[in-house]
């Protein structure tokens, strides 16, 4: 369980930080602003803080699909709330309705990016697993034929 948590934490930390860096690069290029080196550390810290609830969520074994959806919505709200608090704490921007809306879209982008990366990795793994399953069935069929 602990190992699973730490692996998930590391994966989410890398994915979220990459997504935040992409979002920051787009923003800085569009606005033409320069950033302080402290911002890079703040991005790393924010990646780690937002990865924590994600790793916890992954380790929860929900029994129903409804509960799973509730947890994902709750998770999104937590991530969004944490991001707003971090924005304020790091002094990246003032919390106004416009900045809250822009943050919402940024969080949606990072959320979708991370989900997509994980989905593609899982898809690659399941393809490999399905191949192994197919091999098992072929082997079983062959053994059955030989015994007949």
């Amino acid at each position, binding site marked *: 369980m602990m190992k699973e948590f730490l692996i998930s934490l590391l994966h989410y930390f890398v994915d979220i930080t990459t997504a935040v860096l992409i979002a920051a690069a787009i923003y800085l290029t569009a606005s033409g602003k320069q950033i302080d080196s402290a911002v890079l550390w703040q991005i790393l810290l924010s990646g780690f803080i937002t990865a924590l609830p994600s790793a916890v969520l992954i380790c929860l074994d929900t029994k129903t699909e409804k509960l799973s959806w509730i947890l994902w919505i709750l998770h999104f709200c937590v991530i969004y709330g944490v991001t707003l608090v971090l924005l304020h704490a790091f002094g990246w921007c003032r919390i106004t309705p416009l900045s809250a809306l822009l943050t919402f879209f940024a969080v949606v982008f990072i959320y979708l990016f991370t989900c997509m990366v994980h989905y593609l990795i899982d898809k690659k*793994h399941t393809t490999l*697993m399905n191949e192994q399953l197919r091999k098992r069935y072929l082997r079983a069929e062959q053994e059955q034929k030989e015994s007949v």
Partner: protein
Amino acid sequence: MRIIIETPQPDDEDVVIVRCASPDQRLITMLLAYQNANTELTGYLDDKIVRLNYQDVYYFEANESRVFAYCCSEVYEIKYKLYELEEMYTPLDFVRCSKSMIVNMEKIEYLSPLFSGKLEAHLKNGEKIVISRQYVHNLKIRLGIEEVDS
């Protein structure tokens, strides 16, 4: 290690012969588990009591302290705890797929990923069950994709 399966003569009984320099603990545990494995189960459905073969079971599910065996279309109650079934049937190609479920790997048609990080197992009877992320590793070990943690 090679695995050779030979078909016996029509009147001969099935025999497992292990040819190795020194049998290790893993091998002995595996053979004992196979020898002691209970291949038949008693299933309860209303007033009926049915003898079930493990090969007919698609998956076991624990629900509110009761355990059920899901066959092709019927569901029978089983008087075992889920962890007992896990111990009994893990050597027979069953694998834990969530806190409340053990699936028969022979009944998995294919797997597909879900956005939540879980996997969905499409069974041969058309049913779909969810494999929790923390149990995916078990499945990969059984499929020979990943190795057992030392």
